[in-house]
């Protein structure tokens, strides 16, 4: 041999590893195990991006190291292959998404093999393979047949759900509806985000902070009321929160998950609606507040525009204004509405409610800084001690009553303003002007005040201590062809049933047209042969036409790798006990919230049902950084494609006019022509160099 010939050496050893199945997962369970997982890629038509190998190399280094140290290593790879691009390509060209997907997977596989990554290819999975999605559907049925026992904080089979006597008495339909109202996967009218551009509903999580749709980047999202499948992930809020304490994850990711779950402790308080004379009626407006201790300072109330009492509260002379306001609010995103810096808007309903502590009537407003999905969708406003309430009160000239003298952390001049109702003090201090005939908080500080007021409210039956979560139920259906079909039938008498396990997989029907309907129905609504079913009693039914979101397949793929060829079970219990949890999980931080939260939720349900032994799936998590590229921009700030740039003495110039350009760092993109193709790199320098 002469020089270091990367092509010759590398292809030789890759062929050797392939032929000898060198990296086949060991089966000897007396050895220690190491499960090392990469976030599996969506096999896009563009092929492997140079950002992929970085994370894959990291796990590969660990795996090779662990093998040399005597561990059985599970190091698998697969494809998260349902998704929009293959479907859009199908709409344009008529090519079936499965053909596009297969081709892209083949490209990805050969590119990955050329990097010398030590995957056990016998473990390869593909979420679009019926042998795989059979079990995704099977898990969906488990979720459908599970309810959450809040006392035990645990998911339990729906057959164990206690039926209240009054429901039982109403008959079979009432019992069925009661059960359906408790299932973890449920079908309901949902006030959902709809992207007009993609013609698809989006999960709350998919609408970004700026109100744009994560997938297409346009701002053509609006709220619509549609029948959808949802998952009661919100019931698992506390479990999802507690589990974070037991895993070795970057602090930033844990914080993001905690914020997303958004647990807060406070109280629900009932305000009686006042009649025209200002006397309490039996109608109540329930608020959630984290500061019930400031009730003495509540000077007005706000309900969200979507609150179900809005029209009842609105008096005839305010009707036009309220209706216009509600309509306008529907077009804004939650982020737009709650952003602190945003100018506050709102309208008066004309109604008043009675502060249970002071007995005074206070006006009820509609404003979009209150969200319907958080708490009860209504708040009491204490402008003296809450910044947003203060801004709102200033703008609409509502009274500000200070009921807490700021503590020593407050500068003297601010303190004077606060006491005078001209500034806001949201922090701690000593209560003043906080007493009625049976309760006084005066002189106490926040911690004691909270306790005392909640006890009083509970005693007088005005309210109770409540824990609240920002986490909402997860919107789980999409109006798409290229996704897992729901194993669900809607019957003509209104009953919904899940397929029997024996009927799985429910295959996607073959189709020629993949266009979704404008009205919001999925392309599957056109597959008439597939769609309509009749049961043995002649009852007619229609299959669910929505498909599952791409998150479904990635919620449990790490479990399937362990036992990817098992046709009898989704996963053998002994193997699960040996291999779980995943010891190291590496992927991009962009999955910090959604994928990791959803898969942890599924895992906990499977754990509650006794299907997996572990409560948390991923022991250690690591995020690799993103690989960016140099890009160039001219004086005006517009970007210049890399092939129109030349370098002279460390400076950069546009070839056409010789103008000097600034070198910046940006994401790789086709339009900037700065995408680095790993194949070219491997050809020039070899895979070993790329790995370093």
């Amino acid at each position, binding site marked *: 041999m002469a020089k*270091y010939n990367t092509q010759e050496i590398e292809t030789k050893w890759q062929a050797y590893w392939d032929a000898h199945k*060198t990296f086949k997962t060991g089966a000897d369970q007396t050895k220690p195990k190491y499960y090392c997982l990469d976030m599996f890629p969506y096999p896009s038509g563009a092929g492997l991006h140079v950002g992929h190998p970085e994370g894959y190399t990291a796990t590969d*280094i*660990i795996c090779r190291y662990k093998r*040399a140290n005597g561990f059985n290593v599970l190091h698998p790879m697969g494809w998260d292959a349902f998704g929009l691009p293959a479907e859009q390509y199908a709409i344009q060209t008529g090519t079936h998404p499965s053909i596009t997907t297969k081709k892209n997977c083949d490209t990805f596989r050969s590119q990955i093999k050329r990097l010398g990554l*030590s995957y056990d290819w016998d473990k390869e999975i593909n979420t679009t393979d019926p042998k795989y999605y059979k079990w995704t559907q099977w898990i969906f049925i488990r979720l459908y047949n599970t309810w959450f026992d809040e006392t035990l904080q645990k998911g339990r089979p729906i057959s164990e759900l206690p039926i209240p006597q009054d429901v039982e008495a109403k008959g079979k339909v009432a019992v069925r509806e009661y059960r359906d109202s408790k299932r973890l996967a449920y079908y309901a009218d949902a006030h959902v985000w709809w992207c007009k551009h993609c013609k698809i509903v989006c999960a709350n999580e998919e609408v970004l902070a700026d109100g744009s749709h994560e997938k297409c980047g346009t701002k053509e999202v609006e709220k619509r009321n549609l029948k959808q499948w949802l998952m009661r992930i919100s019931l698992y809020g506390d479990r999802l929160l507690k589990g974070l304490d037991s895993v070795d994850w970057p602090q930033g990711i844990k914080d993001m998950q905690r914020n997303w779950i958004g647990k807060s402790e406070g109280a629900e308080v009932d305000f009686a609606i006042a009649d025209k004379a200002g006397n309490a009626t039996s109608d109540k407006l329930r608020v959630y507040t984290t500061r019930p201790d400031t009730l003495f300072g509540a000077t007005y109330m706000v309900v969200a525009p979507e609150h179900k009492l809005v029209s009842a509260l609105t008096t005839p002379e305010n009707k036009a204004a309220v209706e216009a306001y509600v309509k306008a609010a529907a077009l804004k995103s939650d982020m737009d509405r709650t952003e602190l810096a945003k100018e506050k808007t709102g309208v008066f309903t004309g109604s008043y409610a009675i502060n249970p502590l002071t007995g005074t009537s206070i006006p009820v407003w509609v404003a979009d800084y209150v969200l319907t999905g958080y708490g009860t969708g209504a708040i009491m406003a204490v402008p003296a001690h809450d910044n947003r309430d203060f801004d709102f009160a200033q703008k609409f000239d509502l009274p500000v009553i200070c009921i807490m003298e700021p503590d020593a952390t407050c500068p003297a001049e601010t303190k004077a303003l606060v006491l005078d109702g001209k500034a806001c003090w949201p922090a701690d201090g000593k209560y003043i002007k906080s007493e009625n005939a049976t309760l006084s908080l005066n002189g106490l500080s926040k911690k004691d005040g909270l306790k005392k007021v909640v006890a009083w409210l509970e005693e007088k039956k005005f309210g109770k201590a409540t824990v609240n979560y920002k986490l909402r139920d997860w919107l789980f259906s999409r109006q798409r062809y290229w996704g897992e079909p729901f194993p669900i039938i809607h019957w003509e008498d209104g009953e919904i049933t899940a397929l029997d396990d024996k009927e799985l997989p429910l295959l996607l029907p073959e189709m020629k047209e993949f266009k979704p309907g404008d009205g919001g129905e999925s392309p599957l609504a056109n597959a008439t042969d597939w769609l309509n079913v009749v049961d043995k009693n002649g009852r007619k039914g229609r299959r669910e036409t929505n498909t599952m979101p791409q998150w479904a397949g990635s919620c449990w793929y790490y479990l399937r790798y362990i036992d990817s060829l098992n046709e009898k079970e989704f996963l053998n219990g002994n193997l699960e006990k040996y291999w779980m949890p995943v010891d190291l999980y590496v992927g991009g931080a962009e999955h910090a919230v959604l994928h990791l939260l959803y898969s942890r939720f599924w895992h906990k349900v499977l754990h509650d049902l006794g299907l997996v032994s572990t409560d948390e799936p991923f022991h250690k998590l690591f995020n690799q950084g993103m690989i*960016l*590229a140099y890009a160039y921009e001219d004086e005006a700030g517009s970007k210049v494609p890399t092939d129109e740039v030349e370098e002279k003495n460390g400076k950069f110039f546009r070839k056409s006019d010789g103008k000097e350009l600034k070198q910046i760092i940006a994401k790789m993109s086709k339009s900037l022509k700065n995408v680095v193709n790993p194949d070219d790199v491997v050809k020039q320098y070899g895979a070993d*160099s790329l790995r*370093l």
Partner: protein
Amino acid sequence: MGPLDAVKPWQTQGLEGMYRFLSRAFRAVIGEEDTTTYMEGPLPETLSKVMHQSILKVTDSIEKLSFNTAISQLMIFNNELTKSETRYREACETFAKLLQPFAPHLAEEMWARLGHDASLAYANWPSADAKMAEESSVEVVFQVNGKLRAKVSVPKDTSKEDLVKLAKENDRIKVYLENATIVKEIAVPGKLVNFVVKPGK
């Protein structure tokens, strides 16, 4: 390659550097001749020390997912191999084993050239003798009134007293002590000596 969790721009220069490192490693362990002979038996002292240090450092860096530090150490090890006229089997095999997670193709090639039939993938990870990795000497600093005046290399187990003695005899320190009175002597073995002085005898 920088830290794994950092966001960074793609740099072809970095890749060229890695390619050059692997080419040097290829020459050091395999060479460009048709056959390579390896010396059995004990290693020269410095090579042995660097080898043991490399095992410790690379192992620790992998555990911490700090791969760039592991590669820096492999470069140091490789420089030591390159310096040696003779190819020592123990050093070359250890190098191949440590290189394997990072550059598995080249490492397999080395392993085969070293005469092994089976893949390197399951060969035992090398273990280090911490004693062998220890530096026999250590760098200490001499200060006067807290200001650094000299750095010297001394045997690792030099006592407090010997350290002060060495400092006083040091030419660059002597100048500061000539017309001054030592108020206090502070000596920390393995680290420093500091003289607090005031002018005049």
